């Protein structure tokens, strides 16, 4: 420490210039970091404040109210929240096994030279804009669902007790199930890419040991890779769930956009994001309807934040 003075005499320019430049630069960096925190806070606070009139008018009942009636000025979050949760969970049920299969294929089964191209293709699937999924869903998936899948499911499962009602109803092609399937296609690449990266963190010596005692590929997967990566795999799944919850454009095209809770998977519905996208342009500034939409946005943000926070905590050692 005592020779700091001496060295600064030897390099006066550096000694004088450095502290200011360093202070400025580290100040900018710190400011940018704090800005990100402020940004998140501002998003939450602004949605909450602008949603406040709706929360005041309807109270906690807003969450379960299933009416959305601009004429009577009664608005409730019940149907969109229900639709958001149901479509997202259904999408996960479809996407997780497929994403797992792709990740397993890409890490253990595929020939090494083939992994790069297939992995890139899967990542490209993640890069396709969501509105394209919406159009593709509307023009390709909806007719297939309406002409083949829904009539087939009604014929085969519609009369089964208990679950039968899920598969009854007019085969319009749109509806909760179609939205869930399009969502599933959208989140498969996210979950698959995360799982692949996570599977690749397993030290090769563990897997080699298992192969060495005669395990098959699947036994290595189920006894070594999955136990080793269980937490992070859950994190990847939650990440996919977070994506599905807030997806807007793709869902808006195919869900049917009706504010009603149906017992059938073929029935129309809506989600928080889709009702915001559709109703917002028809709302007047300062109206209770607009405030209700912003309150819905606040609810969606809270749900997504919780899911994404859990996902991050599970995926924590990401740099390792």
């Amino acid at each position: 420490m005592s020779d700091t003075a001496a060295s600064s005499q030897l390099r006066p320019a550096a000694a004088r210039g450095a502290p200011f430049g360093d202070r400025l630069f580290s100040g900018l960096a710190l400011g940018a970091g704090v800005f990100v925190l402020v940004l998140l806070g501002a998003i939450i606070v602004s949605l909450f404040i602008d949603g406040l009139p709706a929360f005041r008018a309807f109270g906690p009942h807003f969450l379960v109210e299933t009416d959305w009636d601009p004429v009577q000025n009664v608005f409730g979050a019940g149907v969109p929240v229900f639709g958001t949760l149901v479509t997202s969970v259904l999408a996960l049920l479809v996407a997780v096994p497929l994403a797992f299969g792709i990740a397993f294929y890409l890490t253990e089964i595929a020939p090494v030279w083939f992994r790069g191209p297939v992995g890139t293709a899967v990542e490209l699937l993640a890069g396709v804009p969501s509105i394209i999924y919406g159009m593709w869903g509307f023009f390709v998936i909806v007719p297939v669902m309406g002409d083949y899948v829904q009539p087939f499911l009604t014929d085969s499962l519609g009369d089964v007790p208990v679950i039968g009602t899920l598969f009854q109803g007019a085969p319009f092609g749109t509806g909760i199930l179609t939205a869930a399937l399009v969502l599933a296609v959208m989140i498969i690449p996210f979950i698959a890419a995360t799982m692949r990266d996570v599977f690749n963190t397993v030290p090769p010596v563990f897997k080699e040991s298992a192969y060495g005692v005669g395990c098959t590929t699947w036994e290595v997967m189920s006894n070594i890779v999955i136990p080793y990566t269980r937490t992070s795999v859950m994190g990847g799944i939650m990440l996919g769930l977070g994506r599905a919850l807030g997806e807007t454009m793709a869902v808006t095209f195919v869900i049917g956009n009706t504010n009603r809770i149906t017992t059938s998977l073929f029935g129309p519905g809506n989600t928080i994001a889709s009702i915001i996208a559709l109703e917002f342009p028809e709302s007047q500034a300062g109206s209770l309807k607009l405030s209700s939409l912003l309150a819905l946005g606040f609810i969606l943000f809270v749900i997504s934040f919780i899911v994404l926070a859990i996902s991050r905590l599970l995926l924590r050692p990401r740099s390792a």
Partner: protein
Amino acid sequence: MSATNAGIHASGPARDGAVAGSMSRRRKRLDRLVTALCVAATVLGLALLASILFTLIWRGVGGLNLNVFTSVTLPPGSNGGLLNAIVGSLVQTLVGTLIGTPIGLMVGTYLAEYARNSALGNAVRFVSDVLLSAPSILVGLFVYTILVDPFGGFSGIAGCVALAVIVVPIVVRTTEDMLQLIPIELREAAVALGAPKWRVIVLICYRAALFGIATGVLLAVARVAGETAPLLFTSLGNLNWSLSLTQPMASLPVTIYQYAGSAYDDWVDLAWAGALLITFGVLTLNIVARVVLRPRR
């Protein structure tokens, strides 16, 4: 899983050759079954990508002609194009990226160079990661409440800001990851020559991480170029030619959204042509970003 566990434990001590053989066959059969299912899942994934691309080409190429690039959006039946939407998208993506990139770069620098293990740094990293996956429609609502509602109207700049909010966390993530990869010896060598820390970062670390950072920016551009939801309530869309950032501004995704749901065949064709343009633009950016990144790994 319990079945395979039993299989492993039992296969060792099985002395009876027939029993051991049948167990071994069962294990191999299960392995083949799972392998087949995984191959099927991958084929399905690739088929979905192929189906999307094929649909786009099949329906998009028909509507694609010179008029799309030279004429602005017009009422149905008057042979309109997408010029204002294309230019609007370029402007908003460019300005949004220009706003978001410096902020993201500084946040990434803060996380990698100044706050590797600090509590504040961990909080910033966490929040940035959450923002990375936050629903983009909420970003649109947020910008509506701070820029559109108080200032009395939809505007191109509000759209740019909404896109910038989405750019920031993407750039943060890649910048931080890339700076973390730079060997400490490189920094030590520069510090030993008497360079102050900010110069080490700007002249040594940024330069070494340039490809990685550029990749992050390209991926961010690819992401926001296709975003629709954040623009619905900010730049709104504009059927007329306008380059003013204080007026509502057209964009390709919003125009596609309006046209695809319309009842006019020529608008739907234009929507498909626009969808083809934007998807191939975005996917090309993705591929370029990956090719740029590759030499660094």
